[in-house]
């Protein structure tokens, strides 16, 4: 049974266990999305909790115009944006670091972790919009149309952002892989 069907059953029966199951299924994906957007740390736990709390409290307002997961990711992305705004924390833009700076960074890591560090450093260079587009489509499996609904932009923008993110990552990684 997928999330939307589970939600429908919960609405019919008002069974709290079904709601818990629905939220339980989304803890992992939401956590992964938030952590990938803002990096690891205590803030991730708080943000994820906040997102899921919003989902539970506002589940009556969800009208089913998009899929349930699209709605959840939209709440998560809005929460991440609010976090950046209030904490004044922002991701570096693509122009800040160079491939040499990344290489310098990975020289200090062990060989086994070298590739992971390299990829992580390259991904951290992506702007929030590019990173979100990649995460939603490549990792979370949303269609470009669904990702566009989450991001609040048109589908062409999502295609373009994925294209640009891949281009940046390739530029950074091709020397090493």
């Amino acid at each position, binding site marked *: 049974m997928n999330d939307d069907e589970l939600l429908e059953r919960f609405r019919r029966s008002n069974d709290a266990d079904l709601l*818990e199951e629905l939220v339980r299924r989304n803890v992992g994906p939401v956590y992964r999305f938030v952590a990938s957007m803002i990096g690891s740390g205590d803030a991730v*736990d708080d943000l994820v909790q906040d997102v899921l709390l919003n989902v539970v409290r506002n589940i009556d307002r969800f009208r089913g115009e998009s899929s349930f997961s699209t709605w959840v990711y939209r709440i998560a992305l809005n929460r991440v944006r609010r976090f950046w705004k209030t904490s004044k924390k922002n991701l570096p833009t693509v122009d800040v670091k160079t491939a040499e700076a990344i290489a310098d960074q990975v020289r200090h890591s062990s060989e086994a972790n070298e590739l992971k560090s390299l*990829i992580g450093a390259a991904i951290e260079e992506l702007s929030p919009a590019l990173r979100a587009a990649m995460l939603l489509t*490549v990792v979370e499996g949303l269609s470009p149309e669904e990702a566009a609904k989450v991001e609040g932009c048109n589908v062409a*923008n999502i295609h373009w952002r994925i294209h640009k993110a891949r281009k940046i990552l390739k530029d950074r990684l*091709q020397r090493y892989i």
Partner: protein
Amino acid sequence: MQDDLLDKLFREWSMDRLPDETKREKILRNVFDESLTPVKKRSRFIPCRQRTFIAVSAGLGIAVATILFVLFLQPDRMPGVPANVETAQNEVETAKEPIRVSVLVLWRIAGSESAVEFLEDAVLLAEEQKLHEIELGGHRMFLWIYPLEKSLYLLDLGIDKTAETGIVAVPDRTQALHLNSNGDRFDVFVSVM
């Protein structure tokens, strides 16, 4: 490097961020414990003195904002910025050399959100290197952007909404839009084809 390999690496990097079972349970418990607690409503009572202060501050704020808008933000009062599409069109038609026009024209026609979308769409078109006809705010426009790197930079400016210059409105005539590098900033030039 193939897209498939890149996506796989990206996926693996993100998968490492999944929480362990203990953390999942802790979050879940916190969510449901918290959701059962009634949300505290903020008091709407505002003391009289504060109300007066808020009213006076709001009044002053509106007055200052109005003066600033009238003096500085109206495009037709800014030197070098055409007031509307017709003015821009006249300038384009009568210009002997390519001229610079502000993105404010487009902003004024379509609103900032549409302008940003327009910029992003424009970049997609630029990749294909095609002359493309679009319609925005009821105006037919013709667009030609090159090269890609410059338009990508322009897109970044558009998203940040900090651009002083950018895509220009080119109404109802086959005109070309040229991007020209000028140090760190990019000016937009319009010329008749």
